[in-house]
């Protein structure tokens, strides 16, 4: 295991923020921590790279107890913080150099590393401009480049794509894919379902500091709900009748939304129509992690039902 958390809890001023968490990330995998804001994702990551001390439990990274020698563990990993922490008046190249020095790389190693990262994260076009003038997507790519300066075995990404436009997200996903192809282990947090389904071999859904479920995305969907979902946008006063007619089908409701789950999508769609659902606002789609989250917590991942 690259990361192994056993019974880890964190209490801030009498508030339990992470609650008896167990987590294992095997080498070469991409592991996702999912959950709404305040679920304890960032705190969990901080305990893994050893800046926050667990109130109880143990964290091992690369087989070492993180609290015993954080320097030697952090030498081998890279972290992209949730919020960029760049030196705004310096250029990308200078930001990368400063970070290389934090890792005690030689100036020659630094130049070689900067050169390859400028290409890898597509930073070369604005490499010598002060960072303050650059776009959010560029800054995020630079932040990720910083965390790769030491060529880490484990890359920790805290909400790498929050607030970015779809094109930037896609390009970052493909970079993560390339890193995995090179044998790196990736641990990321996100509250985007599509991101988790696309990138992660395994994931854990966190809510209020507890792991609700963990496993492979597909397997989580199948074991908790079913392959397909029929979603209705219907006045809540009509929900009761529909639920009555389809009482043996798994379902979820939130606001105007009513969702039925089944392994045979078209048959399910027919059944809902026969039960009297409006044809408008009715659609068939694959079940996703958002549904799983909704079924476990009663709320959506991005807050609200």
């Amino acid at each position: 295991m690259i990361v192994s958390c056993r019974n880890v809890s964190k209490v801030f001023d009498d508030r339990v923020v992470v609650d008896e968490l167990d987590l294992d990330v095997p080498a070469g995998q991409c592991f996702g921590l999912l959950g709404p804001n305040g679920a304890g994702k960032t705190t969990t990551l901080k305990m893994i790279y050893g800046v926050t001390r667990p109130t109880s439990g143990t964290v091992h990274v690369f087989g070492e107890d993180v609290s015993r020698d954080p320097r030697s563990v952090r030498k081998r990993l890279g972290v992209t913080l949730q919020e960029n922490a760049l030196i705004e008046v310096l250029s990308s190249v200078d930001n990368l150099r400063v970070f290389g020095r934090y890792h005690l790389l030689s100036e020659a190693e630094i130049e070689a590393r900067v050169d390859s990262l400028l290409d890898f994260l597509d930073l070369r076009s604005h490499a010598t401009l002060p960072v303050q003038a650059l776009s959010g997507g560029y800054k995020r790519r630079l932040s990720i480049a910083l965390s790769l300066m030491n060529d880490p075995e484990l890359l920790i990404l805290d909400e790498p794509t929050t607030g970015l436009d779809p094109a930037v997200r896609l390009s970052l996903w493909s970079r993560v894919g390339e890193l995995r192809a090179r044998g790196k282990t990736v641990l990321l947090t996100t509250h985007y379902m599509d991101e988790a389904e696309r990138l992660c071999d395994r994931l854990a859904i966190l809510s209020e500091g507890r792991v609700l479920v963990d496993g492979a995305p597909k397997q989580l969907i199948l074991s908790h709900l079913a392959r397909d979902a029929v979603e209705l946008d219907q006045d809540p006063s009509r929900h009761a009748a529909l639920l009555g007619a389809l009482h043996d089908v798994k379902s979820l409701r939130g606001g105007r939304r009513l969702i039925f789950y089944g392994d045979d999508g078209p048959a399910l769609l027919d059944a809902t129509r026969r039960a009297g659902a409006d044809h408008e606002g009715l659609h068939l789609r694959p079940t996703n992690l958002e549904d799983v989250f909704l079924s476990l917590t009663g709320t959506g991942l991005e807050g609200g039902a």
Partner: protein
Amino acid sequence: MRVSPRHALSVWKRNFALYRRTWKMNLLPNFFEPILYLVSMGIGVGAYIQEMGGTSYIAFLAPGLVAVAAMNGASFEVTYNAYVRMNFEKTYESMLTTPIQPEDVLAGEILWAMTRSTIYGGCFLLVVAAMGLVPPLRALVAFPIVPLTGLLFAAIGIAFSLRIPSIDLFSFYFTLFLMPLFLFSDVFFPLQERLTGVWLQVAELLPLLHPVRLMRTAFAGELGPMVAWDLAYVALLSMLLLWAAARVTRRRLTQ
């Protein structure tokens, strides 16, 4: 956890890289400030003063103002700048994702504040020497007192910065702490001659008094027993404050 000198140096290099970009804007105002005092007080007020402490007034002012330049050079770094790096720019948070430890961050920042102090104090010492207010050899002896003053005020400043809940409180530090020190620490008049009884001992608590007296001793070229006390004060207070600051830094940065 012990300080790793190489990691502390990488923190220093971060600040240096930034300073290289902005030094022209920073250096000039700071550089002229003590010169303005020297000229206005030394030549202007000095014209009405026969002598002070056995020399011309401008020669009396010079050593104290070198110490003040060293104090100011260190103070800005460990107050506003360090506070912003810790609380707004998340600089330390990002350093701690690497093998850098809180103690390295603190050591790097102190070293950097001492560097700034040495730049300003050193430049002003050169000006003073060029004006013939101190013989070159004595200026050389006086030089190490500059970073020492920087160390003391870096330690005092960081101890303050680590404890305040809001950046607005720095105006208290500058106006109600550094400013009175500047005015009453033997820079403009011989403090001891104006005090009697217990006040003589109370005055010994003033942190700036000791660097000023050391500087004055070096300028005059005469060693007295006070030097040992002044050096001990600067060294002991710096160490005590840094030891406390290391504990707070670790607590603040690692939680």
